């Protein structure tokens, strides 16, 4: 990294520091050519010569792909380049609040949460259509703008950072809390991974709680791959039943069962908004069958940068998780009581059984003996009676 205070990068004049991330610093800068203020995101290049070539190639490829994305919900990239050990991206300078900070400030109303998720899904749908997968959707990468608009940040950065995992032992690559199961299992990632991540963000906005918690990275990754979430409506009664289904479908562990199209996800969210009376459902909001979307970046491998908490032995953790992960078809053994049916009486009986109930509930089925069988089975009884009678009659005919 450049030593001392940075005053200029490429043609940009640095005005001040906006923030710091795991990969570098974000500056507020001035573009003298177009006379506008930009956000300049810098990324430190690796020192290793062979690694650097690969790193640069990937950075520029991703920056170009992200630069082609022109959507109201995606931050615009104006320019990119490198100088010394620093690669940089000049982006639209936006004033707003990160969703992460907004979530820390307090509860987000259901309607607003759906609106944010819908805008993010819409923006992602636009990017996915052009073959760009974000791979690092999390509250820290979603900026809330004035008048309810949303911007997705850091497109393509996550994929650039994969090389860190491969080349720099012990590099922190981020928390897996918002990764998809295929990401934590090291399987190929496509646009459906982003859908899962938006599902997590939406779940957390709705329930005001973290979905995949754990005491360490391995546990969080295990939970991401295996734990089935409680319906949001059980944690927040304002959540409508349809939204439960939308969240559930976005958070399916199997990408093949999840939403296949981000626009379909966005459309369902719009329907939920309409159900809540928040916004008119568009005429095209009729839900259609899912269509697979072939993103060229599908086979890009595991992504997911991030911010602060990944352990140095992240690769080891990934391997362990693969071993631990059971099949997605493992049966459910804990089911919540249906809110549509009144089960209070049976619950009371279970919670405080009488002595008679204790005996009856625990009674193991007895094997049926021949006498019980005969007593209850009329057909068998008739057969035996017929045989015995026939034998007696036959004997009588023969010997009397």
């Amino acid at each position, binding site marked *: 990294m450049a030593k001392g205070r940075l005053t200029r990068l490429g043609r940009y004049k640095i005005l001040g520091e906006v923030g710091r991330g795991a990969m570098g610093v974000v500056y507020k800068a001035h573009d003298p050519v177009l006379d506008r203020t930009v956000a300049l995101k810098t990324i430190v290049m690796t020192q290793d010569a062979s690694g650097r070539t690969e790193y640069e190639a990937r950075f520029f490829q991703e920056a170009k792909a992200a630069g082609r994305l022109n959507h109201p919900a995606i931050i615009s990239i104006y320019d990119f380049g490198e100088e010394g050990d620093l690669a940089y991206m000049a982006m639209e300078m936006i004033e707003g609040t990160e969703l992460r900070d907004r979530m820390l400030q307090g509860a987000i109303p259901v309607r607003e949460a759906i609106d944010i998720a819908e805008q993010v899904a819409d923006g992602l749908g636009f990017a996915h259509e052009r073959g760009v997968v974000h791979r690092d959707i999390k509250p820290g990468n979603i900026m809330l703008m004035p008048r309810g608009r949303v911007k997705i940040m850091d497109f393509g950065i996550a994929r650039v950072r994969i090389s860190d995992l491969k080349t720099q032992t012990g590099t922190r690559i981020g928390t897996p809390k918002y990764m998809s199961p295929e990401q934590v299992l090291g399987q190929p990632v496509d646009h459906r991974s982003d859908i899962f991540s938006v599902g997590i963000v939406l779940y957390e906005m709705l329930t005001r709680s973290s979905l995949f918690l754990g005491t360490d990275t391995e546990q969080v990754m295990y939970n991401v791959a295996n734990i089935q979430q409680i319906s949001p409506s*059980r944690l927040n009664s304002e959540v409508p039943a349809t939204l439960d289904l939308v969240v559930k*479908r976005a958070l399916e562990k199997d990408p093949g069962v999840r939403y296949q199209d981000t626009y379909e996800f966005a459309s369902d969210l719009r329907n939920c908004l309409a159900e809540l009376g928040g916004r008119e459902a568009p005429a095209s909001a009729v839900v259609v069958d899912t269509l697979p979307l072939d993103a060229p970046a599908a086979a890009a491998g595991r992504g997911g940068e991030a911010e602060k908490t990944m352990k140095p032995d992240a690769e080891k953790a990934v391997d362990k998780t693969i071993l631990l992960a059971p099949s997605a078809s493992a049966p*459910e053994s*804990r*089911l919540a*009581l249906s809110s549509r*049916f009144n*089960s209070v009486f*049976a619950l009371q009986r279970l919670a405080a059984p009488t002595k008679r109930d204790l005996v009856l509930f625990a009674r193991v089925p007895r094997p049926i003996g021949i006498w019980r069988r005969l007593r209850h089975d009329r057909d068998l009884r008739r057969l035996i009676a017929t045989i015995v009678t026939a034998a007696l009659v036959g004997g009588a*005919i023969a010997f009397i």
Partner: protein
Amino acid sequence: MNNAAISPPLASVVYLKVHEIARRPVLEQARLRAQLEAIIAVTIAELAPEERIVLDATDGAAVAVFRNPCKALQIAERALPAAGAGLQLRIGINHGAVELAAHGGGHNALTGDGIATAASAAHFASPASLLMTRSFRDALADASPDLDVSLRPAGVFSDAGLRSHELFSPDKGAAARRRKRFLAIGAVAVIGFIGAGVAVRFATVDREQRFDRLFEKVGIPLGDYRQALRRSIGIIGL
């Protein structure tokens, strides 16, 4: 020690899995769920509220029925025709242990092998069909010994955890076929025993007449010893 005091309660769990619900659009999922709830409401109407608990599953619903395997079977059999209305159900029934548990957000849940095994059985059932476990068959036979004859083995299946389940499926025609089989066996027995009696009888009469002709031909007087002789010859099989 009192076993009843430490054993978890046993219940017959009917697991109603909607075929491929997760792959369907959300609005259709909502419609199918509403349909499923309506079916459950109708099928459990006869059960007293303290005898059943209705549970939500990610791919359908489950009903835990206490102390009444026959009713559990009835619920499943009544729910199956819903396939005609576009709701393809895969139903699994198991009789096993269940226990109350917390589910987050202060809500109750039911957990236990009774549910997990019923879910496995439902997983193996094809759309619009019903499979039940060996333990449910035993419970059903215990509750109503004439009902278990209407089940037939469906095979042994291994789940994701490599647990084997011996499963049975209902067979409406099984009781009728068994009755016919019994009728045939009864008829054969009647014909066999009576025929044998008649044959023995005829053989005995015929033999007596042959002996009489033989004695007359050889000139043996038909005296007091004739009967004894005839019996002796009969005994040695001539």
